[in-house]
């Protein structure tokens, strides 16, 4: 789940400590926050529900309305029986082949330039109900690629239901370490498609700051679902100290000047047979990239719109569509003025994501997605781009098989597995059809096309 700049051919090689001011910037642009999302069987054991009640396709993070309400209710719903142990474990292994071997400077430590296989993640979860109103989603992960443990995701919630006038409302508070982790929909960074991707993948283009802070910040978010339809959330975030980051093996995003502000508004309508939601999201923060040179900060303002639709029916044929568009305005006071590492004081970034899925019998799944990120022309900032732009676009196709997770499944609710194949194709990478790789050689965007086979299992 942690962002890894080393995943970026042509980018990792340019990431030297000498250009301190770019560190956060490059992390923000090229972090791969949406690596492997989660499936937590301890929730199924706690509620007596099947995986398919909460998750489209019986596995992974795509939530049904029932799953959304479970999350907003603070992970506390139960079948009334005590003695449920809130522990789960997850393993993700994959093999990936890239169209053309990556440059020596871009390959990951411990691995080759192509045809890599890895146990990418082994995670332990403390996930479940602690009291009537308090529940947790805490994940610690060992990366078989980076060869280290880290505290991955933290979401500790207090929630309660009450009446406001004659309307139902759910009020909650979340202490967490990642903006968008708290979101109940599948359109924003942490929870959107692809729900599993390889650390060896070249990534999906520049992303706004909001999507690249996982693990390096701590936040307190208050939220409310009013009358089952109106969702609002406000969160305040601050960066962790260097000591704190070292303790949990998290990456350093620099130091906020003031606090980062996250907000979210959405309208959601559940008609049982189908449902939809539409919303707005924003994040503002001033970031001082170099902790030894505080005072001047880069300013980021993110604003997004998103929408989703699910047809669930009798669960035999399920269709979903998730879409989001995000714009980021950047004022690079530090990178431009102090370091002269950018051509422009002000830049912008636009990101579009779309994914549609079909699942048959909660077992066989097919998903297609497109990604498109575009940014201002800035040759200093985007040194590996031949035209000074970071534009990256392409498509992702996935087929998967989830044999268990239903009420009558073998081993339920302990045995859970998904096997799949995923193909990523690139139209543009770092500006156009070609860019400079880490060795300084021209490389075609399509050279990064990849096939991945994956095994994703949890107990």
């Amino acid at each position, binding site marked *: 789940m942690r962002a890894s700049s080393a995943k970026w051919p042509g980018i990792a090689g340019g990431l030297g400590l000498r250009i301190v001011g770019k560190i956060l910037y490059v992390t923000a642009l090229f972090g791969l926050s949406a690596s492997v999302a989660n499936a937590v069987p301890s929730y199924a054991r706690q509620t*007596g*529900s099947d995986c398919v*009640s909460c998750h489209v396709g019986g596995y992974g993070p795509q939530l049904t309305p029932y799953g959304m309400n479970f999350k907003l209710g603070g992970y506390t*719903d139960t079948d009334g029986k005590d003695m449920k142990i809130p522990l789960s474990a997850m393993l993700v292994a994959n093999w990936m082949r890239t169209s053309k071997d990556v440059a020596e400077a871009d390959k990951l430590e411990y691995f080759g330039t192509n045809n890599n296989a890895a146990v990418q993640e082994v995670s332990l979860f403390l996930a479940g109900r602690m009291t009537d109103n308090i529940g947790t989603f805490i994940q610690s992960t060992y990366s078989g690629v980076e060869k280290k443990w880290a505290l991955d995701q933290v979401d500790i919630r207090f929630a309660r239901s009450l009446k406001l006038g004659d309307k139902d409302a759910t009020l909650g508070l979340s202490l967490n370490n990642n903006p968008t982790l708290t979101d109940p929909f599948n359109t924003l960074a942490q929870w959107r498609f692809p729900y599993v991707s390889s650390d060896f993948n070249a990534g999906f283009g520049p992303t706004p700051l909001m999507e690249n802070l996982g693990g390096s910040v701590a936040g307190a978010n208050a939220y409310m679902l009013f009358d089952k339809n109106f969702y609002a959330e406000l969160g305040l975030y601050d960066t962790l100290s260097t000591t704190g980051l070292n303790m949990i093996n998290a990456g350093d995003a620099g130091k906020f000047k003031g606090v980062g502000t996250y907000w979210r508004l959405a309208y959601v309508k559940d008609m049982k*047979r189908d449902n939809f939601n539409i919303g707005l999201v924003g994040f503002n923060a001033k970031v001082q990239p170099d902790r030894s040179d505080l005072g001047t900060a880069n300013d980021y303002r993110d604003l997004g719109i998103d929408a989703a639709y699910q047809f*669930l029916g*009798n*669960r035999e044929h399920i269709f979903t569509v998730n879409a989001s568009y995000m714009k980021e305005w950047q004022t690079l006071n530090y990178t431009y003025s102090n370091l002269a590492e950018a051509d422009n004081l002000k830049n912008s970034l636009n990101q579009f994501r779309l994914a549609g899925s079909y699942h048959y019998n909660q077992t066989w799944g097919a998903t297609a997605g497109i990604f498109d990120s575009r940014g201002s022309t800035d040759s200093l900032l985007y040194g590996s781009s031949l035209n000074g732009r970071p534009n990256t676009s392409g498509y992702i196709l996935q087929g998967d098989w989830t044999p268990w997770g239903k009420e009558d499944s073998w081993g339920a609710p302990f045995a859970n597995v998904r096997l799949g194949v995923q193909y990523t194709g690139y139209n543009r990478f770092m500006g156009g059809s070609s860019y400079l790789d880490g060795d300084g050689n021209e490389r075609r965007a399509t050279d990064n096309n990849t096939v991945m086979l994956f095994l994703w299992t949890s107990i």
Partner: protein
Amino acid sequence: MKKYSLWAAVFIAAVTLSQQSMAAGDPKKGKDVFAEECGDCHSAAPGKNKKGPSLFGAIGRKAGAVPDFSGYSEAMKQSDITWSADKVDSYIAQPRKVVPGGKMKYDGLDDLAARTDVIAYLSSLK
């Protein structure tokens, strides 16, 4: 007088049709309705409780009587309801009106035909 007789005939016909439609509910369609409306919180399998109790054998059962389900509200346990088809129909149409103070977070199913079908499905679970 004639007018009143006509209205009475229409009323009787409507009630009769209503009873017939309930009696003629399609359990196969009802299984789909169950999956859409009920299945997240209730199982149709015997002894399988979720957030709500198993609905296997629910028709004819006393309210709050599934022995190993501990999530009933006091309101449900004290309701003294026996789940006849008519009572289930009233309940799933307006849960909070039939059992005020109950825990079930469900707004109700307006569609009479869908209610009839799901009751037919529940009746088949024996």
